């Protein structure tokens, strides 16, 4: 078997050739593993040093930070190692030399690849050990073996993915420049094409949900795109799913790379690509992507002309479409010029240009057909077996996971008829495609005949509320969705101001919230509180197992829906201050600025007002009138419900946005009001406040 599938001699040779890059990578990553946790330790300890509860609880080291550092390995060192290890393929003399030695191509590929992999593993394992030691030594940062394992596996999966991409890129081309270019094409173009197709479909067929597919494609199936999403601020999850998909994709690429390498001729060295046909395909790909974007703009143009003749930017779409088409053709020739570096080759490439034109035209018509088919669909209630509410737009990201676990299918013909009616009107464009204040965007799945149709529908809140209740009842919420027992991972965000609660107050508040929700069996309902009614948010951090998310955060709103908890919060956070003190505090300063939200709950409705209040305000007296009404008609400290007002406010110095006044800088209050008082109160709120909506 010696030299049949693996050549130890070649492995060690490649290993030696990678020594400089490998050691450099290890050193840099070790440095990162020392400095990143140290930096986090310094910043976090300084931030929380005055909060006893946090100080006693060493901060969990976020694996994403290390994963970001690990990107150096995956995106810089692995490609460099691949290019160094396989650089012999790009020169005639070196390529001939390697192909003259008594090692077949496949074992040659495997041996060199293994050398890259071994260096990559060393780049992961050595820094991981250093990271473990660092976190053990730092008081405010700790890392678990599980986190380390997850980071390590994610970095390794990303490395395998990049190795796979470059193995094909290098095998398909014969110069350093084309190695990199072709690898980037393989790495990016399928993803960019997918985005292009989905975005075009989603923009033309506006009721077709594409976000889920895009999210699945980026956040859950590839470590690198997952990291890009993370860097853009999306928290998401870090689990084994990305590891599995990235590694699987990488392994497939490695196999393809091996096949290409096995068939690669020595004379490919110093040529832009393996064969003329491959070169034609490669120069066509970026140009096709650009042409597809152009086709998308033309599709928007025709679509907007069809439905929204008056929309002024329709001509922009036409312009962009033409520009992208022109750039596509330019890109086609630029690729040939850059890779072949011969004007004659550019002239020869004219022959295949019609193929590009036909491909882009075919894409335009296929997309047109697909979007036409999507738009032509109407829900036929006679054939519908069920409608499933897959997503509700205002569900928090973390809670979507819980929602996904439920049986959300609606079999009730009455609800099916209502949803079908709403959707069909939307699709007929007899109703606006954008949500209004009283509607919520939902993603539904319609089982109609033998097929399932995914669509977006804007369901009125009253109807959605009924539907949720039905689903809630059907699934038995409290049975499956009890809040966990209080732990150190639970904390309160006041959303506004700097009210600090002690650990025992937070615990009391949480236990009250848990009991209140469980008694009322309304966890789902509480979760679905519109954000303008949230007075505070209780965050529950929960660690899940390795197969799932590493970290889950529930944000449970505290609002009029949890009146007891709200009352308790008012006691704890109110600080004994009231609206009158609050207004006085603002009035006494020259440069104070305040914000206040007021929920006015009557037996018929609930309204949310937002008020900006500042020193020297002409209508400062009107706020004082509010205080007088509360004093005259109200009673403080009752449970939120019909006939009550909930207020929260905070004030800060105008020159220093982050500097809060002490004493009367914030207040949380719940008042019950008589009907007369409520009437007067609402009148002033309407005059001085702004509706959130």
């Amino acid at each position, binding site marked *: 078997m010696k*030299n049949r599938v693996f050549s130890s001699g*070649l492995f060690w040779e490649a290993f030696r050739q990678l020594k400089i890059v490998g050691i450099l990578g290890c050193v840099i990553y070790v440095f990162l593993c020392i400095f990143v946790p140290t930096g986090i330790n310094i910043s976090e300890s300084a931030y929380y040093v005055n909060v006893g509860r946090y100080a006693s609880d060493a901060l969990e080291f976020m694996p994403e930070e290390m994963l970001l550092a690990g990107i150096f390995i995956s995106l810089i060192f692995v490609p460099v190692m691949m290019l160094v290890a396989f650089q012999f393929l790009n020169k005639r003399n070196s390529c*001939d030399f390697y*192909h003259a030695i*008594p*090692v*077949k*191509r496949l074992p040659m590929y495997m041996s060199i690849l293994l050398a890259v992999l071994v260096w990559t593993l060393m780049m992961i394992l050595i820094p991981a050990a250093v990271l473990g030691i660092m976190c053990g030594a730092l008081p405010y940062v700790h890392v678990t073996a599980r986190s380390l394992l997850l980071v390590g596996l994610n970095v390794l999966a990303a490395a395998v993915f990049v190795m796979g991409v470059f193995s094909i890129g290098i095998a398909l081309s014969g110069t350093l420049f084309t190695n990199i270019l072709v690898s980037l094409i393989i790495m990016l173009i399928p993803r960019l094409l997918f985005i292009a197709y989905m975005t075009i479909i989603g923009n033309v067929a506006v009721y077709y949900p594409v976000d889920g597919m895009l999210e699945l494609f980026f956040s859950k199936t590839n470590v690198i795109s997952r990291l890009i999403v993370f860097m853009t601020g999306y928290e998401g999850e870090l689990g084994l799913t990305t590891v599995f998909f990235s590694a699987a994709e990488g392994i497939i690429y490695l196999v393809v790379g091996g096949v290409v390498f096995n068939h690669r001729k*020595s004379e490919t060295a110093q040529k832009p690509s393996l064969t003329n046909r491959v070169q034609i395909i490669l120069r066509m790909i970026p140009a096709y992507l650009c042409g597809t974007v152009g086709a998308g703009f033309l599709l928007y143009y025709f679509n907007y002309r069809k439905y929204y003749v008056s929309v002024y930017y329709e001509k922009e779409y036409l312009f962009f479409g033409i520009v992208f088409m022109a750039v596509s053709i330019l890109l086609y020739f630029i690729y040939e010029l850059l890779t072949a570096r011969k004007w004659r080759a550019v002239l020869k490439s004219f022959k295949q240009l019609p193929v590009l034109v036909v491909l882009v035209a075919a894409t335009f018509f296929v997309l047109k057909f697909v979007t036409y088919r999507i738009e032509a669909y109407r829900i036929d209630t006679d054939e519908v077996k069920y409608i499933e509410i897959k997503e509700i737009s205002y569900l928090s990201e973390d809670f979507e996971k819980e929602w996904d676990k439920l049986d959300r299918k609606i079999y009730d013909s009455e609800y099916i008829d209502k949803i079908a009616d709403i959707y069909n009107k939307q699709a007929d464009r007899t109703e606006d495609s954008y949500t209004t204040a009283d509607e919520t965007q939902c993603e539904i799945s319609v089982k109609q005949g033998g097929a399932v149709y995914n669509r977006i529908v804007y369901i009125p809140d009253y109807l959605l509320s009924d539907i949720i209740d039905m689903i809630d009842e059907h699934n038995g919420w409290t049975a499956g969705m009890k809040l966990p027992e209080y732990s150190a991972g639970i904390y309160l965000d006041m959303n506004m101001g700097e009210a600090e609660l002690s650990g025992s107050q937070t615990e009391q508040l949480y236990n009250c919230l848990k009991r209140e929700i469980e008694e009322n069996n309304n966890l789902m309902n509480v979760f679905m509180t519109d954000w303008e009614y949230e007075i505070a948010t209780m965050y529950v951090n929960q660690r899940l197992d390795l197969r799932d998310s590493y970290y889950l955060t529930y944000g449970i709103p505290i609002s009029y829906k949890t009146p007891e908890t709200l009352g308790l919060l008012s006691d704890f956070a109110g600080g004994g201050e009231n609206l009158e003190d609050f207004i006085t505090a603002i009035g006494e300063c020259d440069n104070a600025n305040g914000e206040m939200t007021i929920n006015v709950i009557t037996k018929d409705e609930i309204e949310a007002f937002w008020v900006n209040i500042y020193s020297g305000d002409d209508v400062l007296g009107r706020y004082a009138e509010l205080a007088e009404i509360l004093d005259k008609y109200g009673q403080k400290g009752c449970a939120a419900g019909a006939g009550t007002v909930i207020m929260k406010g905070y004030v800060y110095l105008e020159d220093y946005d982050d500097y809060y006044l002490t004493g009367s800088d914030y207040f949380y209050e719940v008042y019950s009001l008589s009907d007369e008082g409520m009437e007067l109160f609402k009148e002033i709120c309407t005059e001085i406040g702004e509706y959130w909506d």
Partner: protein
Amino acid sequence: MISVEGLTKTFDGYKAIDNVSCKIPEGCIYGMVGSNGAGKSTFLRILTGIYKADAGSVSIDGKPVYENPDIKKNMAFVPDDLYFVNNSSMNRMKKFYAGVYENFDRKRFDFLCSAFKLDPSKSVSTFSKGMRRQAAIILAVSTRPKYLFLDETFDGLDPVMRSLVKSLVCKDVEERKTTVIMTSHSLRELEDTCDQLALLHKGGLIFESDIANLKTSLFKVQIAFVEAYDKSRFEGFDMLHFSKSGSVSNIITRGDRAEVEERLKGMRPAILDILPLSLEEVFTYEMEALGYVFDTGILEKEGE
């Protein structure tokens, strides 16, 4: 034995090797000559399994070469364009060779390094062109090959080193029955070393022959007649070249020397001399016959 049948190799529509067939016996030193771009290097690369032939076959000891490590482990190739790992020394290259050639002889390597006076710990990049070629030859012969392929063998070597390399090659042939296939533009060197010689031109094998046969089958005739005459007088002779200066003609002809001499004497010439040709002259006239001729006088027009 190396057996080549109908070998053809094309690069972007250009036929570098066109239907070449030959047999190279074991223990033979086989020289290859040809004009620039004749296909010698390509031919060697196909023989060593670097290139895959588009048509035809190459077999060594009855087995195909391409992607066959069992055959390749007994082969060593020193190309015209040498390769050493970046910034490597000969010691480093020794490790590389020892890792992939199971017959690599470290003792022989050390011995040859000292014989050629090369410092194996110095970076090869600091070596001169000739030293690099010596290094490559040392590495190649240290693999104890059964088949040794040398492209532009003596390129860059000084006369002393040429002699040393020739001795080294001949020793291996003599002691180990190594088969050597070498190309060179120095016909003088090939003449001294090779048993057989092949001429490649435009991808085709024009002839292959024992050196001795080659030199005796082609010869130069100097002839003059009292009466006026021209080229047509020699119709029936296998002439490669004819030139006339005054009444004396120079003819390069092919055939049995005794027979040609007899026929020419029968024409009653005033002067008749039959001279042997050097290998270089044989090559030049054979190539001329194939149309590979350049008038050196053209250079004299430069600057006019």
